[in-house]
């Protein structure tokens, strides 16, 4: 290595370390936040071009499956309509009973702050997105982020004054206490480097099948109970294994996120060991 290149590389190395320290101290936040804000409209535009194109390509690829999927969806739609009618009727009856018994609702009203996606982390090793709400908007680290349809997206892991980074549930470092809605089987939903979700520690004897809905459980205190995470797509493993191997598909389309909701009425708690 020539001495000129060596000196230059050493200089850049020192500069990089200085930038890392300044960045960790939050002193470069205006620069990083400014860059994200300035490029946000372009990123938004590019996503708007990419998403329909990707959807169209996917449809072309899966054209043979679409017809049968359409039939299945029609049947499911019909069933869901019937369920909605039945549940609406049940809700009315419940409200009347609550009024009669003067019982408070089990859960306080949920409060949200709406946020727009600014950017996505460029690395394939980290599943994180930047949103345009930060400390000064009342956000705190650990707050849960959901889609407009209220399915789980992730939690706020890095908080700055004007923006924050949300680590997605598909990140390899993400772990969400969860349960299978139908059988109440408990487990932990974890992400991976292949951006797939699986639910770990589901007892071998638990009843889990394809299509079951996985929701958050309140265990651990980091997520409120009952938020939808996804649907079971594969149940595998051997009978002699201690736990089932369960793959799930997130309900939220995590690669096409635009507007999100930060759940501000739920304060996560870090439970101490007894």
């Amino acid at each position, binding site marked *: *290595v*020539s001495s000129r*290149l060596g000196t*230059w*590389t050493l200089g*850049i*190395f020192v*500069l*990089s*370390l*200085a*930038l*890392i320290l300044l*960045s*960790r101290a939050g002193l*470069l936040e205006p*620069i*990083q936040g400014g*860059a*994200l804000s300035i*490029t946000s409209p*372009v*990123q*938004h535009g*590019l*996503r708007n*071009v*990419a*998403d329909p*194109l*990707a959807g169209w*390509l996917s449809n072309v690829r899966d054209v043979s499956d679409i017809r049968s999927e359409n039939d299945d969806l029609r049947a499911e739609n019909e069933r869901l309509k019937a369920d909605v009618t039945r549940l609406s009727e049940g809700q009315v009856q419940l409200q009347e009973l609550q009024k009669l018994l003067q019982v408070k609702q089990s859960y306080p009203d949920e409060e949200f702050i709406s946020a727009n996606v600014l*950017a*996505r*982390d*460029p*690395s*394939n*090793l*980290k599943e*994180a997105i*930047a949103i345009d709400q930060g400390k000064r908007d009342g956000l705190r680290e650990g707050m849960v982020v959901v889609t407009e349809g209220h399915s789980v997206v992730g939690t706020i892991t*890095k908080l700055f004054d004007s923006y924050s*980074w949300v680590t997605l549930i598909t990140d*390899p*470092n993400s772990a969400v206490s969860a349960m299978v809605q139908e059988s109440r089987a408990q487990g932990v939903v974890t992400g*991976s*480097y*292949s*951006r797939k979700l699986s639910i770990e520690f589901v007892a071998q004897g638990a009843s889990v099948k394809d299509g079951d809905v996985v929701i958050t459980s309140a265990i651990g205190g980091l997520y409120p109970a009952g938020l939808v995470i996804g649907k079971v797509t594969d149940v595998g493993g051997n009978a002699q294994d201690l736990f089932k191997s369960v793959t799930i598909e997130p309900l939220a389309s995590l*690669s*096409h996120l635009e507007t999100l909701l930060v759940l501000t009425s739920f304060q996560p708690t870090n439970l101490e060991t007894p």
Partner: protein
Amino acid sequence: MRYVFAFLLFTLAALLQTSFMPAFPVFGVVPNLVLVLAACWTIIRGQQEAMVVVPLAGLCLGLGASQPIGVAILAVMPILLISEFAPLRLTPSNFLLTLALVFLSSLVYEMVVLIALLAQGETVGWLSAFTRAVLPTAIVSVLFTPPLYWIIWSRSEGLRRARAYV
């Protein structure tokens, strides 16, 4: 002027990498377009320009990342060090040399990011990270090299003529 062009090119590549490409993952990953451009620039236009352009590429990547800004600059710097071996001409053409540089520097880049994640207290599964993210990213980045190589190559006609004259 060439550095302004480089900055604009890297910014555009970074935006495509983070907004457009995630809709079209190849082997489950997105190519590191900025790193590929920096490697192409280094081989085609020489080390002198690369000494400015490579840190600039790291800055463009760092500005849009959840990591501290300097991490990406550190992670791209090995391009410069590896390019020191370019005069040895281990391959018959600049293009093959570029492919090798993209592959190696992509591996190094992702490993530096992994170390940075580890330093920030995150758990790193080395084997699964390598097989599912690091290696596929290096391969996919190599696949995306030809069009990006052509962009830099076609913009360097004057430089190539000057070198031929010398």
